[in-house]
């Protein structure tokens, strides 16, 4: 930075009078390299928002709420007759801290996290547009690619933070409440504590990768529409639709194309042996969708007319 700041009225500690104020002579513009919309600035802008803080708060408080629910409720003495493994986990959730964390991930892994992703990514551009701040960001200027990349990066960081927060708080609450016994794989071995933590970390990583498709769809919708709720709702709608189609056996092999088809694969991280094939299929499916939606979103945003 050059001497742009010297000699201004403010630095001379004189009150500025709009009636006589003059901006002063032009100074040479800085030729220093500039990084528009630095990551930390966008992070700060997002973290000032209550919707982001609220989202993280909910994820952090959820394990505590589950713990309290276990305190209030009594154990049902007859197992209800469903084969869902979630139920199995619910029954054993109080056996150890890692099982509690696993259970917490399992109940949120289905829909809640999809919703979180939908809100985070559907909000990115559309909320700026609806607040009319988008045009000012773009004329600072921030190139559209840079804006989108920073926004996606910040949302990914927030999402990852939320995931880690959820699992971390669940683990701490679980360890304090139920001790540090290892993970009991249903009909399988009991893992050591270290291996259990590795499994949970793996599940977090998997959930993160698996939900990238929803993140990319949210990105696409948020650049297409100017209403944040519309974008988030679109992602939720797509998820529900995909789940419904997945439930129709007549579709046969076509169901493999559905982005949610492999959504149950994260449970493999808590099985023994882990069927890595399902995990890999799920990650591949998610990444493919993320690539398609992401490129589409970048292409669309790059040539979009900003009229809001």
């Amino acid at each position: 930075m050059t001497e742009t700041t010297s000699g201004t009225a403010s630095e001379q500690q004189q009150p500025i009078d709009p009636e006589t104020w003059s901006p002063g002579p032009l100074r040479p513009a800085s030729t220093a390299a500039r990084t528009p919309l630095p990551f930390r600035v966008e992070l700060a802008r997002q973290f000032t928002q209550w919707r982001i803080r609220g989202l993280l708060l909910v994820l952090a408080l959820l394990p505590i709420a589950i713990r309290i629910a276990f305190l209030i409720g009594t154990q049902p003495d007859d197992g209800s007759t469903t084969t869902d493994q979630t139920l199995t986990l619910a029954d054993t959730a109080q056996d150890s801290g890692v099982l509690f964390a696993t259970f917490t991930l399992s109940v949120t892994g289905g829909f809640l996290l999809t919703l979180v992703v939908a809100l985070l990514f559907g909000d990115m551009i559309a909320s700026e547009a609806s607040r009319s701040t988008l045009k000012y960001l773009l004329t600072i200027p921030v190139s559209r690619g840079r804006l989108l990349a920073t926004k996606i990066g910040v949302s990914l960081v927030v999402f990852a933070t939320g995931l880690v927060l959820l699992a971390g708080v669940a683990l701490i609450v679980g360890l304090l409440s139920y001790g540090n016994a290892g993970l009991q794989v249903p009909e399988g071995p009991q893992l050591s504590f270290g291996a259990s933590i590795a499994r949970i970390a793996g599940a977090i990583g998997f959930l993160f990768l698996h939900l990238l498709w929803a993140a990319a769809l949210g990105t696409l919708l948020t650049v297409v529409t100017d209403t944040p709720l519309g974008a988030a709702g679109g992602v939720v709608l797509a998820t529900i639709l995909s789940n419904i189609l997945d439930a129709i056996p007549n579709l046969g092999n076509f169901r493999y194309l559905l982005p949610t088809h492999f959504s149950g694969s994260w449970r493999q991280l808590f099985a023994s042996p882990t069927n890595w094939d399902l995990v890999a299929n799920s990650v591949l499916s998610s990444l493919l969708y993320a690539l398609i939606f992401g490129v589409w979103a970048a292409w669309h945003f790059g040539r979009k007319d900003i009229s809001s």
Partner: protein
Amino acid sequence: MRTERRAPLGPRRPRALVATSAAIALLALLGGTGPAGLEPANAQDSSIAPTPPTITDEPIEAMVPLPAGPGEDGEVHLDTSLYLPKSIPAPMVLLAHGFGGSKDDLNRQARTLRDLGYVVLTYSARGFGRSDGKISLDSVDHEVADASGLIDYVVDQGYFVADSGGGPEVAVVGGSYGGALALMLGATDPRVDAVVAAITWNDLESALVPNSVVPAGDDRSSPAPLLDSQPGVFKEAWASQLFGQATFRSDSACGEFTAELCALYSRLVAGDPLSPDDEALLADSSPSSVLDRMSAPTLLLQGTRDSLFGLDQADANARQIAAAGAPVDVVWFSGGHDSGAAASSGQASIEPTIEEFLAKHLPLTHSSTGPPLSPEPDPQFSYTVPGGATASGQSLAATSYPGIDDAADAVTSTEIEIRSRPRTIVNPPGGLPAAITTLPALGALLGTLGSTAAISLPQDGQTTWGFSRSLRESTTMVGSPTFTMSVARPVGDDAVEGVTEQPNDAVLYAALYSVNGDSRTLVGGTVAPVRVRNVPADGSPVDVEVALPAAAWQFSAGSRIELWVATTDALYQSSPDAAGWRVNVRGTLSLPTVPQSALTESRGVASPLALGGIAAVLLVAIGLGIAAMIRGRRRGVAAAAAGTLPTVAETSASAAPLVLTGLVKNFRNGQRAVDELSFRVETGQVLGLLGPNGAGKTTTLRMAVGLLRPDAGYAEIFGERIVPGAAVLTRVGTFIEGPGFLPHLSGRRNLELFWAASGRAPQGSRIDEALAIADLGAAIERSVRGYSQGMRQRLAIAQAMLGMPELLILDEPTNGLDPPQIHALRGVLRRYADSGRTVIVSSHLLGEVEQTCSHVVVMARGRLIASGTVAELAGEVSEVTIEVTDAEQGGTALEPLGLPAIEVLSPTSLRLLPGETSVETIVSALVAAGVGVRGIRSGRHLEETFLELVGTGEQR
């Protein structure tokens, strides 16, 4: 329908009633509602997609008439579907469904086999689906004869491939009810070349009325010898469930069952023992009666989660088939009648096993589509060991089924010491409440850890137990473990109160648990019923050897084994009489083990395709990212090379702040918002962009800063052509169509973040000056949410002025401002331009532009109407407008003066160019002519020009 029964081939046993109902139950499992092993694989369980059904070639449906039975009148009509492959003739596969099901259950499997190249026939058995007739439970003279008749039906149509003997190549495949049929058809019809029987029975009587007491001297060289001591204990829960499955559609209490079977079931339920006639009836429905005639190679698939047909039934089948001289393969898979609706991957996995077996024994002549033949001899016995407390599940294999070929490979055993003491246990009157260890078909659903978990431990007082030390090393058990317990009648001081008439027989249930920490798992998934006959009345103990349910199980090191003996179990018919027994389980437990030849751990490995796909996607993503970065950098370099990042001195000399060239923008609805617009703004100007609402001013400004893409033409700022995000925009401050802020932040914080977002150093922002101009006072520290429109407007102008950019573009800046603020803003903008910067202001208010701007561009309907200095457009200074009493007369009066121009504007006003003539002369001439002068105005008002220009624009 009554049939005359002939002497069954197998040995007769007393009490046939129990067996019948059990058989019924078994059959139901095979049907669509039961978790039969042949259910389609759950797509989640396998990454390999099942072959999609070909919709074009539908099966040939027919009702085939067949004789009702020996000595019976009439015929039955069986509903059949014939699936023909692309190439005929071909080997034939007869698919038999499970109990309670119909041919519809087999549609998918039939199509899969058809696609492999087989002629496939599915049918609904007697009494099921749309077939008529009564259910005889796979009786040799009825259901089995039907199946033979159906082979004739296909053979008559000539679709078959002849085998070496000239007959057709035929395989029979079935599960549960269909499995027993397959075995019995294979044994009785010499045309059958291969048999696949899944989760089925050998002897109905022992399946329905089992007794786990091992007779003295029993041959235990195979892993799970079938015990047939009678009387046993009626497996009522299963029998009633299966009986119900065949009666639901009829108003008869017996449903579709033959009267004999129905009567047998009724007697069993009433608690009667099986009579010799009953035993004969059940034997007639049991493969055990005919398997000594089996010559076809056979694949036996038995589930490890099966409280209905245990592994002992398959053991007996394998022994009989081997004794008859036919090759037999045995597979214990993870599944069975208790495996529930959630098809385990084990169940899905048996279909490839079946296809492989068929390919080996029923080769397709054009085997291009068939699975490749394995060059090595396949193992003939494979079994799945579920994961233990420390180990993962694994699949193991042995070259032959132990104990059937020669004594050398018979099972060996590991002895475990069990410690206990005698306890008295009580059967409450009525036998309730009963311990629940498994429930028919639901076993897997009940336990938290699958079917093998204890669901409810026996009640106190109804149970005794013994346990081992912690195991030093891990032990894999394959088969049925045995132990000896002593049972005595409590007499004297030990006598149980409330027991008035102690029954002669002690009925007890033995269970084996694997205990690891707090987790207790029921090994084998079910209990062993024990009926100890004639316990001495004097209190002396009877020792009985008990065989526990067979399983493949790994006891891990450090775990314990517990033996439980209880007086009740919900799976079995409860005993109504109150009783007490003194039981001691102290002794040794024999765990059978078999030699292993091969070991494959069932680890899921990601397919190379999926991993390659992931790598490819990541590579493409990285490639795109790099490409985008390079493009961005190139643009930056090009801009720098073109001198678009120059110093102020250079640019003010060389390039105009804003040049628009032929800009065109169409709205989506086709309306042209901006039409061929070109103008140029020079440094130091305050340019007013003037036009009525909808003239295209805002659209023009949006294009100028790269928010909208022009359909044609281009905008240049300081010589750089504008694209979205062009670097030169750092030198521009904008306020376009309304303010935009983060409403929850203060005005100051908004501006700070805005400046920070530009990536420039904070000290260049001159934020204090900008805020002083906005003049928001203390409100600057409050959140923007509470601002009035005028306050937001001023904050937005301050935001545009951050850093004091060289070009300031303000769209309708005075909206919502009060007159003093407007006045102050005018001064600021003028001084701003005076400092060598440039200001562009758009407005639809003339007065605004006239008072603020030095230059003006007038737009209407997207077109440029006029441009120039405000003075130019306001008209030449010399022009004079005179208000007179009569304009016509005045005009005439002035003609002699020879003025350059005279125009009658209205009846009372004249406009003229005075030229050399002085205004005084003109007025005198008018007055002299008697025309009254009311007023003189020199120059023209911009409003007039504007209206004129806009009017012209609209006419065009």
